[in-house]
């Protein structure tokens, strides 16, 4: 088989121990079965990395993977996925980012970069079309993401190059360090930045002048225009996300009584309005911003308020934004806000800005600070331990600990470990609110039962992007399902997981699915790749990838016992608000989910299921 389009056909294999960069052909026989992006990279991980590997050892590998639709003119074809074993979770990690880094990599001629080993000294990978070489990064080590990117652009003489980099958090192996491109787009979760830091790899910079070949240009244009039209017809992708961004969810989720507050001790935040999308749009929004080829533009450019500049001014990048920064997304405003009991929007914006520059996941950071605040208020820890007062609601504590975590300074060294390890070390593991070592995002699984099942069974630890049952439980699409009910959640969780995995494998953005379906993506994929895909082949590829991730996790030592939720979610009823009295009904939903998946009661894919998916 010869790849006709979508794929460049070439990957870069970078051996950081030897200092070599080699080009090799992509495994064409995997391209159709696993599509690309997250899919084909997980196949490489399965083939090449021992699941028992220490995530921060040279034997772990770090893969940057685009999809066949990345860099095409399909709407939102901007994504790349970082795949590795995560230091936060010990599980397979698949962390996604947009911007324009991934299209640039395709234009330079590469589908994927696979890093192995560990460099003796800090380096960065420079790619300019056929040139791919490691360069010294000693002068960049210790720098923030912004300065790193600006320096590489200036030194290279190619200011249009795209840079993906780690900050001090990645260098200091913070367990939830992120990889950040174009300063504000991040492969944020599970500590992919720490793996990069462990390899002494500071950045990747790429400039490409080629294009993505497509198998059938006319069919590509027709099918992608049809999908763009659909996106203009769905009010959410045409109006809602451009106007309010994902932060529109703050008030919505709060009204449903599902907004986790003060480390999941409450499920409504009395000050949600102050940190909402409506508040941002009225008082702070400077512009919205789109990734490459995006027709939605959900990104925010937000100003620190005039009153807040004295306390929380940011050194803006680009400079002409003055005291403005990108973000925040709903999840970040929640983790740095409601989950810490903080309603000071300027403090949230500043912490979010710092997370981008320092290279950290704001979800896990905010959630870990919230867990520490709970211990502080309970009297378990005091200022002799933390160095500063850390009550819920303190913006000063948030900002101080944001910096200290990135540098592992003082109590920041505990925050840098994530709330699971921090809680265990302090003798209170019950403050960890998450799954498989990764902190929950912004939906209380007691109020939205499907989200609890999705969190518990996510291959990369607690995550909202793997099975967004908010769609059926809050939005009511494609059909409304009662958020309090357990019945039927196994099937819908499986369906959402397989669908979102399929989208991830194409290189498109998951937000497309707020306005369109796999049925509309399918003809674009056919036209671009030339694959003669059967009607359900893309969805089945999603299921295949999901099962392969599961198999890898099982070989890493995870079991069905890891498909669980904290006791607070299973035993402690919500104390007030619309969902008062609710607990997670995971024990009812999980067996149903395993049956829907074709897995055993112990959560293992059956031989029949593996044979059906070609994994036997």
């Amino acid at each position, binding site marked *: 088989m010869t790849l006709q389009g979508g794929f460049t056909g070439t990957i870069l294999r970078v051996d950081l121990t030897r200092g070599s960069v080699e080009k090799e052909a992509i495994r064409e026989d995997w391209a159709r079965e696993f599509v690309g992006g997250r899919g084909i990279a997980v196949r490489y991980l399965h083939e090449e990395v021992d699941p028992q590997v220490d995530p921060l050892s040279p034997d772990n590998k770090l893969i940057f993977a685009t999809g066949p639709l990345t860099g095409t003119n399909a709407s939102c074809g901007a994504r790349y996925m970082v795949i590795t074993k995560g230091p936060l979770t010990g599980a397979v990690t698949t962390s996604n980012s947009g911007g324009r880094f991934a299209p640039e990599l395709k234009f330079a001629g590469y589908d994927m970069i696979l890093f192995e080993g560990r460099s003796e000294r800090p380096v960065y990978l420079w790619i300019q079309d056929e040139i791919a070489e490691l360069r010294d990064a000693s002068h960049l080590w210790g720098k923030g993401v912004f300065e790193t990117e600006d320096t590489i652009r200036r030194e290279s003489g190619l200011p249009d190059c795209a840079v993906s980099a780690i900050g001090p958090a990645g260098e200091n192996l913070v367990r939830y360090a992120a990889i950040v491109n174009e300063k504000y787009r991040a492969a944020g979760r599970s500590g992919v930045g720490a793996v990069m830091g462990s390899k002494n790899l500071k950045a990747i910079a790429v400039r490409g002048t080629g294009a993505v070949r497509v198998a059938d240009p006319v069919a590509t244009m027709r099918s992608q225009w049809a999908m763009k039209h*659909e996106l203009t017809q769905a*009010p*959410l992708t045409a109006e809602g996300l451009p*106007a309010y961004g994902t932060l529109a969810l703050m008030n919505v989720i709060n009204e449903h009584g599902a907004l986790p507050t003060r480390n999941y001790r409450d499920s409504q935040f009395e000050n949600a309005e102050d940190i909402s999308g409506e508040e941002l749009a009225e008082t702070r929004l400077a512009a919205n911003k789109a990734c490459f080829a995006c027709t939605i533009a959900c990104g925010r450019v937000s100003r620190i308020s005039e009153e807040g500049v004295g306390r929380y001014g940011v050194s803006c990048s680009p400079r002409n934004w003055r005291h403005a920064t990108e973000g925040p997304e709903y999840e970040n405003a929640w983790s740095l806000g409601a989950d810490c009991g903080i309603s000071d929007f300027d403090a949230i914006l500043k912490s979010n800005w710092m997370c981008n520059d320092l290279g950290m996941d704001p979800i896990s950071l905010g959630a870990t600070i919230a867990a520490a605040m709970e211990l502080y208020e309970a009297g378990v820890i005091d200022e002799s331990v933390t160095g500063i007062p850390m009550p819920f609601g303190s913006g000063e504590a948030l900002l101080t600990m944001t910096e200290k975590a990135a540098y592992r300074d003082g109590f920041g060294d505990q925050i840098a470990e994530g709330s699971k390890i921090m809680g265990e070390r302090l003798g209170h593991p019950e403050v960890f609110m998450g799954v498989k070592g990764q902190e929950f995002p912004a939906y209380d699984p007691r109020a939205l039962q499907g989200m609890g099942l999705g969190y518990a069974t996510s291959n990369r630890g607690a995550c909202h992007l793997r099975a967004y049952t908010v769609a059926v439980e809050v939005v009511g699409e494609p059909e409304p399902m009662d958020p309090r009910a357990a019945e039927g959640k196994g099937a819908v969780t499986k369906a*959402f*997981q397989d669908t979102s995995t*399929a989208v991830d494998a194409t290189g498109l953005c*998951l937000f497309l*699915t707020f306005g369109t379906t*796999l049925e509309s993506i399918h003809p674009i994929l056919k036209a671009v790749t030339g694959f003669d895909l059967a009607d359900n082949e893309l969805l089945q590829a999603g299921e295949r990838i999901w099962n392969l991730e599961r198999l890898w996790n099982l070989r890493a030592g995870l079991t069905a016992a890891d498909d669980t939720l904290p006791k607070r979610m299973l035993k402690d009823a919500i104390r007030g608000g619309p969902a008062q009295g609710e607990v997670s009904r995971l024990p009812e939903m999980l067996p149903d989910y395993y049956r829907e998946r074709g897995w055993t009661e112990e959560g293992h894919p059956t031989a029949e299921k593996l044979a059906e998916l070609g994994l036997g």
Partner: protein
Amino acid sequence: MRLLAGLRDRLAGGSHALEVDASSVRDLLTRLVGESPDFRAAEELVFESATRDRAARDLRILVNGRSVQFLAGLDTNLQSNDTVTLHLTGARGYPGG
């Protein structure tokens, strides 16, 4: 009554919250439309059709945080001090995957 996002400008002149006397959700929405300066636009935003027998597809109505899709729909009775929240969704397909 709480209004979220774009509904504030389109139904309540920018207000976040309104006090409304109503015996049911249908009654409440009818009063809301009746008091709107742009009657037709408000009706289209709130009801599926001029017969007013169904809420608009993209409108979500919560009574004390519970969607009326899981209560009695537009016939859901209201008590004094109930909180009704209106928000728009506008998703299509298979949102979020």
